[in-house]
């Protein structure tokens, strides 16, 4: 049996109970999102006034809303949107957070100015800044992604910077410098791969925050514009009818919870296995 480090890590992850639970929860949502066009037969925006306020049944697994729209279709398409937004925010963070963090940690001249800007952006309460940005740019999926990226990139950059700072002082990096390796090469071959563990952990938690914050924004009416279904706007519309038709808010609410919890458990598991030193940051 070959025992490459990567394989050993994966084996340890698969033995980690919380990680596996988290993975399973997240996979549920991921599968729903990926298969949305095939597992929903009814258009999520199709109105059917005669079928309004149907509780979950054989015909409508998740019931219908105040306009008779299928909640199964709506939540599954909502899942797709949540996952898309989450992935976009994570990718943007992985690129720009790493870039800013690596530059800031590696080049002393860049550190102070970049980190002051970081501090300023982090001083804003996360949701307030996201709201401010989407308010200015107008509510739309792209703008939500942009807002979430702006809000969270400084946090990612800070984590990358911290690991780069530690690494920069390490002997093998200094040896590479002494051997005359260029900055770009050192960053690419030594610094970035070793800053990866904390970054991966951060990104899985970030995915959770992104999904949660997006839901909050669209609950407030600042996300994707109706009738595009998002978990947040389904819940916002269902709020008026939460007594007569509690399933309208409960179903997307529970799915949202499953997603966030799955990602949090995933992050905990990754942290335990990849980078036990981070445990203190909970």
């Amino acid at each position, binding site marked *: 049996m070959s025992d490459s480090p990567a394989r050993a890590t994966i084996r340890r992850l698969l033995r980690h109970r919380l990680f596996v639970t988290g993975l399973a929860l997240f996979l549920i949502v991921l599968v729903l999102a990926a298969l949305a066009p095939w597992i929903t037969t009814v258009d999520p925006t199709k109105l059917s006034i005669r079928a309004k306020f149907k509780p979950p049944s054989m015909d409508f697994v998740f019931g219908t809303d105040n306009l008779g729209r299928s909640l199964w279709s709506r939540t599954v398409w909502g899942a797709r949107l949540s996952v898309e937004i989450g992935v976009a925010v994570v990718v943007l963070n992985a690129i720009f957070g790493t870039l800013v963090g690596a530059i800031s940690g590696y080049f002393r001249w860049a550190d102070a100015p970049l980190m002051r800007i970081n501090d300023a952006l982090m*001083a804003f*309460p996360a949701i307030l800044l996201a709201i*401010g940005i989407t*308010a200015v740019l107008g509510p739309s999926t792209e703008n939500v992604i942009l807002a979430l990226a702006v809000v969270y990139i400084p946090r990612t950059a800070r984590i990358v910077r911290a690991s780069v700072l530690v690494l920069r002082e390490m002997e093998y990096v200094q040896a590479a410098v002494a051997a005359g390796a260029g900055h770009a090469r050192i960053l690419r071959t030594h610094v970035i791969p070793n800053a990866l563990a904390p970054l991966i952990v951060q990104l899985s938690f970030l995915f959770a925050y992104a999904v949660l914050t997006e839901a909050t924004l669209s609950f407030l009416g600042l996300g994707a514009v109706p009738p595009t279904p998002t978990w947040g706007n389904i819940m916002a519309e269902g709020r008026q009818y939460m007594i007569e038709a509690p399933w309208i808010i409960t179903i997307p609410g529970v799915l*949202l919870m499953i997603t966030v*919890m799955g990602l949090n458990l995933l992050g905990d598991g990754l942290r335990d296995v990849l980078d036990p030193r981070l445990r203190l940051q*909970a």
Partner: protein
Amino acid sequence: MGRLLLLRLAGAVPVLLLVSVVSFGLMRLIPGDPSAAIAGLSATPRMVAQIREQLGLDQPLLTQALHWYGGLLQGDLGRSILLGQSVFWSTMQRLPVTMALSAYALAITLVVGIGAGVLAALRQNTWVDQAAMMVAMLGISVPNFFLGLLFIIWFAVGLGWLPTGGYIAFTDSPWGWFQTSTMPAVSLALLNIGLLARITRSTMLEVLRQDYVRTARAKGLPRHLVVGKHALANAMIPITTVVGIIVSLLVSGSVVTETLFSIPGIGQLLTSAVLGRDYPMVQGGLLLVTALLVLVNLGVDMLYAVLDPRIRYER
């Protein structure tokens, strides 16, 4: 101490300055013509021009910036379009409501979060620990607006114990305040309880392993002093750092919680400003709230020094 305060204040100044730049820049990012956006679709060109003039958007950017900073220095953040009032005073009026709610939620968070975290650490790997950490995981995973909705369904509508929304100031009726604030405060607190319990647990586990805890036991101190004094006092230092973050999260959370429970605080003010395209209000409110949070974090830094003599005596 005084020296440390000055140092931290000096550190806060550039952050505040940049925060003001971001707030100012935000409004200039509006695509197209902000005056038209504010005036709405049915506005006549004259109305648009009027708004443009009123907001000074017809001026060059530099003039606008000078105007904005000139106003800032006098505590003038502009005038709310929706309310027709000064942004500063509208914010200040709502501030006590949000502060009272946040303080209530913070108190719940500290008591329950630290309590659960310490208990979990002392009973590491037992069912107590696992149960506490499971609840904490739930806490950081349930969106607070969903929790708020569930609370309304269960406790307000179902059981009829508490009102579904609205707000009574503490100064008008402490009991009324308690009734109207409890559901919002608890739904706000849950996320933070989860965070704090997790951090407290891992910090306590770390601290309980330290040599000085063994010393405290070796000299025959009773358990409540070993844990409650020697261990907890040290654990409080990293925990304090988190309090700054928690306050920021509480303010963030108040946006949706206040909207949900119809509480006339800053969160609700800003949400309606955003939805009503009241840009001066959004910009000024954002700046004011963030500036206050920077001050809170300054206070937390000072608290840090109170707790840790090694920082207190730093030259």
